């Protein structure tokens, strides 16, 4: 796993800080285009808030549509960051080094984007303030005569997502301190002062490094249970709903967690390929790294496929009329059955067929397409779980209805993708997306082992 050429500290600084110290010419143009799309999405959201929910395709009984689908999708993407970073740190996988920072930052931005979706979905986002800030230490605004169901599983969701968001931001910030010190030493003026503040006087002495290394492992161990809980709890938004038959399943938590990892790791692989291309980081994000991610993804995708099949089988096996009605809708009624086939093909059969071939795994264009394929498929998966379940008449509903998203919803959804891209691009201008010290550590541990007549590149690893 050491295919790259040896690098020295000066070269690592020069090449990895290129996104910050020498912004490429296309940067502001790309930022402007993405900013325009985000602005359009914000205008659409403003229009929807002004005009009411009538401008969306949401109507009884399908009151959850694109917004909630997109919420679950971005929460899923956020799972890549900490999963990759924490598990690979704990297992001391050497190929983690270039991937961790980008993955962690993608986590933060996708979580922020995800949290916007339920707020937009409320229709009157400012009123959510009453859910939180009313009585000291006691949430919910009972005093205003608002009596929500405080025992609802929906209450669990914000507590889990905000815990994950806060933890992820802190995790990223702590790991950035040594790199802020590098930037402090390489900038002047106001940038120097800001990076100096953020580096907090970091010198890089033995004690500080020891604590930094322990911090990586300790925080990984603490965040992993939060990571698992978040998507489990998101799945319980559905799984705890007794009245919606196709949602009320005990398998949802692991099914959602594995699905989140599948889409998230694919997204990280895509981000790494884009970073390699736009900043010429061929020395850092190498074919071996993408190859390793693809091999990991084969396992994750197969795990996800197992849960998908189980979920469908359990649905049919009970032979309950409401459940069968939903399954019938998903698998036999056009266009839902066509979307279903597209979703399974894009999520599993297309990418896994690609990843089984070594040459395909190392072809970055094909890998990009496979990662995009997974994420389109996973977005469709969430849509096909949410909408058909609501569209069929069930215990507490009185109507059958289908759902067609409006242009307002499309614009908002496209805007969220532009927003995450814009935030990633902006942050690349401010912090190194590949951890400098991690790469440098990999270089000092690099060695060669001679076995017989072969010399093999290798790395030392501390216990």
């Amino acid at each position: 796993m050491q295919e790259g050429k040896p690098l020295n500290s000066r070269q690592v600084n020069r090449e990895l800080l290129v996104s910050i110290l020498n912004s490429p010419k296309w940067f502001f143009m790309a930022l402007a285009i993405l900013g325009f799309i985000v602005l359009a999405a914000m205008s659409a959201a403003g229009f929807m808030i002004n005009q009411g929910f009538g401008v969306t395709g949401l109507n009884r009984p399908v009151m959850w549509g694109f917004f909630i689908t997109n919420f679950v999708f971005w929460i899923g993407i956020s799972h890549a960051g900490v999963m990759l970073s924490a598990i690979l740190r704990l297992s001391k996988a050497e190929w983690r080094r270039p991937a961790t920072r980008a993955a962690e930052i993608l986590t933060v931005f996708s979580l922020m984007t995800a949290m916007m979706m339920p707020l937009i979905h409320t229709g009157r986002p400012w009123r959510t303030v009453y859910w939180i800030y009313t009585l000291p230490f006691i949430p919910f605004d009972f005093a205003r005569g608002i009596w929500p169901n405080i025992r609802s599983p929906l209450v669990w969701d914000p507590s889990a997502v905000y815990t994950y968001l806060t933890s992820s931001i802190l995790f990223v910030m702590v790991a950035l301190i040594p790199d802020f010190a590098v930037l402090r030493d390489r900038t002047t003026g106001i940038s120097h002062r800001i990076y100096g503040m953020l580096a907090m006087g970091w010198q890089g002495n033995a004690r500080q490094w020891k604590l930094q290394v322990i911090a990586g492992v300790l925080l990984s161990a603490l965040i992993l249970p939060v990571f698992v809980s978040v998507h489990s709890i998101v799945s319980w938004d559905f799984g705890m709903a007794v009245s919606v038959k196709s949602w009320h399943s005990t398998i949802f938590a692991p099914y959602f967690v594995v699905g989140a990892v599948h889409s998230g790791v694919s997204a990280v692989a895509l981000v790494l390929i884009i970073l390699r291309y736009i900043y010429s980081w061929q020395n850092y994000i190498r074919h071996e790294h993408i190859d390793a991610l693809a091999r990991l993804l084969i396992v994750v995708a197969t795990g996800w496929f197992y849960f998908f099949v189980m979920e469908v089988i359990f649905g049919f096996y009970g032979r309950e009329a409401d459940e069968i009605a939903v399954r019938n809708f998903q698998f036999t009624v056009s266009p839902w059955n066509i979307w279903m086939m597209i979703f399974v093909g894009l999520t599993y059969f297309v990418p896994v067929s690609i990843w089984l071939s070594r040459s395909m795994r190392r072809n970055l264009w094909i890998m990009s397409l496979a990662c995009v394929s997974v994420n389109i498929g996973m977005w469709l998966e969430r849509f096909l779980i949410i909408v058909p379940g609501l569209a069929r008449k069930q215990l507490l509903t009185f109507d059958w209805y289908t759902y067609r998203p409006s242009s307002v919803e499309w614009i908002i959804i496209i805007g969220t993708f532009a927003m995450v891209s814009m935030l990633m691009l902006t942050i690349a201008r401010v912090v190194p997306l590949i951890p400098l010290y991690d790469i440098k550590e990999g270089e000092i541990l690099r060695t060669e082992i001679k076995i017989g007549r072969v010399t093999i590149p290798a790395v030392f690893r501390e216990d």
Partner: protein
Amino acid sequence: MAKSPILGLFESADHAADAGDALKAAGVPQADYDFLTDTPYPEGAFGERYESHRLYIFPFVGALIGLTVGILLTSMTQMAYPLVQGGKPILSLPPMAVVTYESTMLTAIIFTIIGIVFESRLPAFKEGLYDTRITEGYIGVLVNVDDADLTQTQTLLTQAGAIDVVRKAEKISA
């Protein structure tokens, strides 16, 4: 007698470790010298002293506080809303579990971060001698010595292979 810092810059870990050995042999206490690097070297690579810490206490304290806050928050909220739902008790445990778990984990993580910063002795804006070449891969050996021994220490560092020895403080600005 007043002590002053002196910083030797080395190109290789071997030379920096030699400098550490030489300082030890010259009777400089281990608490008076340190190694500054731009990446974590394996512990003991320079023969430096063992750094003890109490970081592991922080997450436990945080988790305990978070658990208490979580139980109080969820139970007080339920007691403030005494309306029976679905024949279930007012103070019902299952809805408390998730929020309590999250508050436990959140506080444990926040306390761990506080612990990392505190145990790393950060922020440390007024720390003495530093050189920006350290983040270019040079290894700094920072020694605090009596003013009378400065010249002797400089010679010692140079003999160990220092490519430069810095005596004037370069402020780590904020």
